[in-house]
């Protein structure tokens, strides 16, 4: 893909007037191939997806269909076999702090305190800020995830749920353009999961960072997303269907559950998955 076509994706014209594009993340003809002794295994093929600025997209699909592969390719942690990924028109060449990642396991450095873990990223992204300013940023996000009392606790002294809160704070604190969440609540019990969804959506409402989140949980997918993207089962997985969730924001869980459309959405997703 040459640069001129990439530039074009960053703007769009309507009636002859050129507007800056609303597309934050653009996946074009994405392909991922793993070579095996028995020949190439094609995980993803012809995957096309555009994610707008300030959009929250959840991705749902069966285990092993390549969701995580796609996300790690966006993060730049996994090389692309074909096609193109662009963030604001710039092709992804490797990992970087413009794409914050919340991993499935909290992946905190266990020898550091909660604050140090968040600061690790903040120091990197705001090298010119004073130490006090950076600490303030880190503390602000830790406060936002409800960890006021745990700034100086070692990460391995925190519960799984609290560790994932630190993970959320760390991802938001580096102010990424895109937030990538790989089943961040998959390892938590349903109570803690509900709490963390509330915290995530509360911060997100404020920061409006474009978010792509993989989940296995249909309710989670509907509650958080503007759009739910359904992926077909692999090999050669691609986008199967897209469901727009038209609930207004900010949402409350109760309002979502009471909404007449909720069960229609839910049925749509389950029908797709059970198909």
């Amino acid at each position: 893909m040459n640069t001129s076509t990439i530039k074009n994706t960053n703007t769009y014209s309507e009636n002859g007037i050129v507007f800056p594009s609303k597309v934050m993340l653009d996946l074009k003809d994405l392909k991922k191939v793993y070579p095996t002794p028995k020949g190439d295994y094609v995980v993803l093929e012809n995957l096309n997806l555009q994610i707008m600025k300030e959009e929250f997209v959840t991705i749902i699909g069966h285990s092993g269909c390549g969701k995580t592969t796609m996300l790690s390719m966006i993060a730049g942690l996994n090389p692309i076999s074909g096609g193109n990924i662009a963030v604001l028109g710039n092709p992804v060449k490797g990992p970087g702090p413009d794409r914050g990642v919340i991993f499935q396991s909290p992946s905190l450095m266990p020898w550091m305190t909660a604050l140090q873990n968040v600061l690790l990223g903040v120091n990197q992204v705001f090298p010119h800020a004073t130490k006090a300013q950076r600490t303030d940023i880190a503390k602000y996000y830790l406060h936002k995830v409800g960890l006021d009392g745990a700034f100086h606790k070692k990460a391995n002294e925190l519960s799984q749920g609290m560790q994932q809160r630190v993970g959320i704070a760390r991802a938001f604190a580096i102010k990424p353009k895109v937030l990538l969440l790989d089943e961040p609540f998959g390892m938590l019990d349903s109570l803690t999961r509900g709490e963390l969804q509330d915290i995530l959506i509360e911060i997100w409402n404020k920061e409006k960072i474009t978010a792509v989140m993989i989940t296995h949980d249909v309710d989670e997918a509907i509650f958080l997303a503007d759009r739910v993207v359904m992926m077909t089962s692999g090999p050669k997985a691609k986008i199967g269907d897209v469901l727009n969730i038209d609930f207004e924001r900010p949402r409350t869980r109760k309002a979502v559950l009471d909404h007449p459309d909720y069960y229609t959405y839910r049925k749509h997703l389950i029908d797709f998955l059970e198909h």
Partner: protein
Amino acid sequence: MKQEITLKTESQAPNIMKPITEFLKLKLGKVNFLGGFKKTGITILSILLFIGLWHLGSKALYNKEADYKVEKALTEQGQAAADAERACIESGESGCQPNTLPSPTQVWASLQSLIADHYIIKEKKDAFATKMEATNQKLIAKGKAPIVYTGRASFIDTVLTSIKTVFAGFLLALLIAVPIGIIIGLSPTLKSAFNWFIQIFKPVSPVVWYLLVFMIVKTIYIGKSSDNAFVISFISVGLCAMWATLVNTAMGVASVDKDYINVAKVLKLGTFQKVFKVILPSSLPLIFTGLRITLSVAWMVLIAIELLAQSPGLGLFVWEEFQNGANDSNSKIIVAMFVIGIIGFLLDRLMLTVQQMVSFNKNEGI
């Protein structure tokens, strides 16, 4: 997939569980206490059993040698000589005692005599120092080396020399093995470059290391009157013992959790930051496991190396006592054996404590 999100209303749940957990804690605590008591009891019992067996064994050996001596006197010199020999052995005279495995009481007596000997030598040293003070000050004023006490070292002095040597060797091993291990662990290319080196030199015996170091240090110190035994022995100890740390460090650095590496990649940490903030802390537990092995290996090879290097430590003490062949030499050797064992054990505990302090996973180590 069918999982419903339950709303958070059950904040009382932990309170219901509380009495149960408290009860469990109490019960577990009690069991632990009883268990601990039992464990100490068994340890004491086994020590007593060990001493008892030792006593019986040494007595049997003593009798065997005594009988042989009497028998020999009988066949070579007749009944009168045999009776005299028997009487001499039973009287406890040192000249005709069988020279075999000493009994626990003899060893205990030797320990006390060694400690007493230390104070005697210390007195001599102090006396020498006061006698020489004026002369030495004159010598120093003239820019010459002062005269120092060069008499026999006491047992406790030899222990201190050994500890000093082992720590110097350990420090050398640490300074060589940790940086090289980190570099090897970070770079697969350097790993293959160094691998043959490690594989070939790791199994080399302490004696050969000593000889190698001796060849080199002897030449470096040529023409100087200073004593190089200490230098030779600590370098040899360091070179023998560093391999465990080298291999463990390289392994620890090479096998950092992929999640941490991914975090470092996403945050785009620089190489320096990545090494010092992510890779090194995460491999510290393995590095310290290596250092712990290094220290125990260092202590083990030290004895042989001191013996060869004529460095006035425990190794030389043991060897000299063996050559000496005096009546209490054997029991002094056994004293040294216990001292070596106990110090080795304490060094290992020390390293274990340090290891647990730096380890972020408190369940590691034994």
